[in-house]
């Protein structure tokens, strides 16, 4: 717009310093993230040859293959099942715990520390421990319960057993986010409700939930995005020989298998583009749906 000539010394200095300051970040971001987005999409139109050698343009063949690929469809179902269990249950438990800890409770910070603990443990280690807890012969769980369950090798329940690990891992994180949200709810709302004779449960549904609905919405959106990318726990718990493998493999697990175990980067890229599209659809639906239940002041 030719403003360059009219720049005051101050504007010129801001321009130079501004670009100098963002240069490292933007260079890294463009090289590491922005360009790779397009490279991955580009790659999804190619077939990688045997041993990862050679790239043959195949147009939309990979996408056609995805639509008929039983593994991909099943992985999509598994991923959705995992997310549908992990996200709502962890949010409900975390919200209830946050409401409890927001009251006058002794040992508040001890409880908070304990609930948050799984967040600082490596998922690889957590998965190993749970695999041991779930062990059908010698596991702790089968000794606590009077019945025997093949927690992680029964194809019907394995994905839910994995979701339990996900819930256990994330409760503390969600809870701390809710605690931050709850601190902004004015106390007098509750006092007024108590005077009117509202019970604790009524207050929870009529005051707490509407007032922290922006936080609930935020946690819901971000947790669903993260849950759709579930990989670590499934990779660690389900062996290639596990009979529940077909019913537990997630989209990212398939992406890893195709791209890096089998070296077919073209098809791996296609799977991850499909994942991106699914995540965008889920997020868009929530953005539209929020008007019905999220209250911003």
């Amino acid at each position, binding site marked *: 717009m030719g403003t360059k000539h009219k720049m005051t010394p101050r504007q010129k200095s801001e321009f130079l310093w501004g670009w100098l300051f963002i240069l490292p970040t933007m260079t890294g971001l463009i090289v590491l993230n922005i360009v790779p987005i397009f490279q991955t999409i580009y790659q999804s139109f190619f077939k990688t040859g045997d041993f990862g050698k050679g790239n043959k343009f195949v147009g939309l063949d990979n996408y056609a293959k995805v639509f008929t690929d039983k593994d991909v469809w099943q992985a999509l179902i598994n991923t959705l099942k995992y997310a549908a269990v992990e996200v709502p249950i962890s949010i409900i438990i975390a919200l209830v715990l946050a409401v409890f800890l927001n009251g006058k409770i002794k040992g508040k910070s001890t409880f908070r520390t304990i609930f948050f603990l799984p967040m600082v443990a490596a998922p690889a280690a957590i998965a190993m421990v749970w695999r041991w807890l779930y062990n059908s012969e010698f596991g702790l769980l089968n000794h606590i319960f009077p019945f025997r369950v093949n927690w992680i090798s029964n194809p019907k329940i394995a994905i839910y057993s994995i979701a339990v690990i996900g819930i256990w891992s994330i409760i503390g994180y969600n809870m701390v986010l809710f605690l931050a949200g709850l601190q902004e709810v004015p106390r007098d709302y509750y006092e007024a409700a108590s005077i009117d004779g509202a019970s604790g449960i009524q207050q929870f549904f009529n005051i707490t939930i509407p007032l922290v609905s922006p936080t609930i919405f935020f946690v819901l959106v971000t947790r669903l995005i993260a849950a759709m990318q579930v990989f670590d726990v499934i990779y660690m718990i389900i062996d290639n020989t596990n009979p529940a493998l077909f019913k537990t493999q997630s989209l990212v697990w398939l992406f890893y298998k195709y791209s890096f175990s089998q070296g077919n980067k073209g098809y791996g890229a296609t799977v991850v583009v499909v994942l*991106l599209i699914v995540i965008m659809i889920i997020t868009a639906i929530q953005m539209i749906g929020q008007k019905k239940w999220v209250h911003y002041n």
Partner: protein
Amino acid sequence: MRISGKKIIIYIILAIMSFIMLVPFAWMVLTAFKTVGESTQVDPFVIFPSKWRLDNFDEVLHNVNFVKLYFNTIMMIILRVLCAVLTATLAGYAFARLEFRGKNFMFGLVLFQMMIPSQIFIIPQYVMVSKLHWTNTMMGLLFPGLVSAFGTFLLRQAYMGLPRDLEEAARLDGCNIGQTFLFIMAPLTKSAMVALGIFTAVFAYKDLMWPMIVCPDTNKTTLASALSKMQGQFSSNYPELMAAALIACLPMIVIYVLFQKQFIEGIATSGGKL
């Protein structure tokens, strides 16, 4: 203080939840001290080891070079934290306080990156790393963490919360933009830098897929990725696996318990600012 019935129920629920949260950790510790015989004994079921043996730890430390794994993991964490904090502090300030052409578009790219699932970047990043011959190197481990879009956003928010008159005063005193940033503004965002540092450290420590892909060599990789290999190595010797898991988890847990306030605020409140 009178304790009502409701309070008692709340305490009971909190205690049960704490128990559920702690059992897997406790079971990891207990199993790590057991013999294989004790761990697989069914009738009667053994909860506590008859003797607190260190044999499993000896065996694991003998077979796996944990010193190397620790070194790799800690180096990767330190480098990623330094890179993220340094680049994000600079960029965050520019996005929050300076006016220049192209700013909005560039900040749009930062936001765009944050919305994309990270697996999208992995294949091209891996191709770059292997072309640069950085597989099985520290540079390879560090590579995706050289910059942080999330950190840039977080620091931008922190700068936006600072009063403007500080900069005006510095400018009247003859500071240029670089000096104002370095001496006046950057020191005021220390808490955001600490939050970003902790956030980066924990997520680098937990990351599994990237180190597995880029550093498959058992001596060049991180703790998380080495653990995934041990499962095959020690097959179903659970006491040894639990000993390895404990060795891998313990330092982070100890640091967490010591600095729990900073940890929880660092991870969760920065997560909440997205």
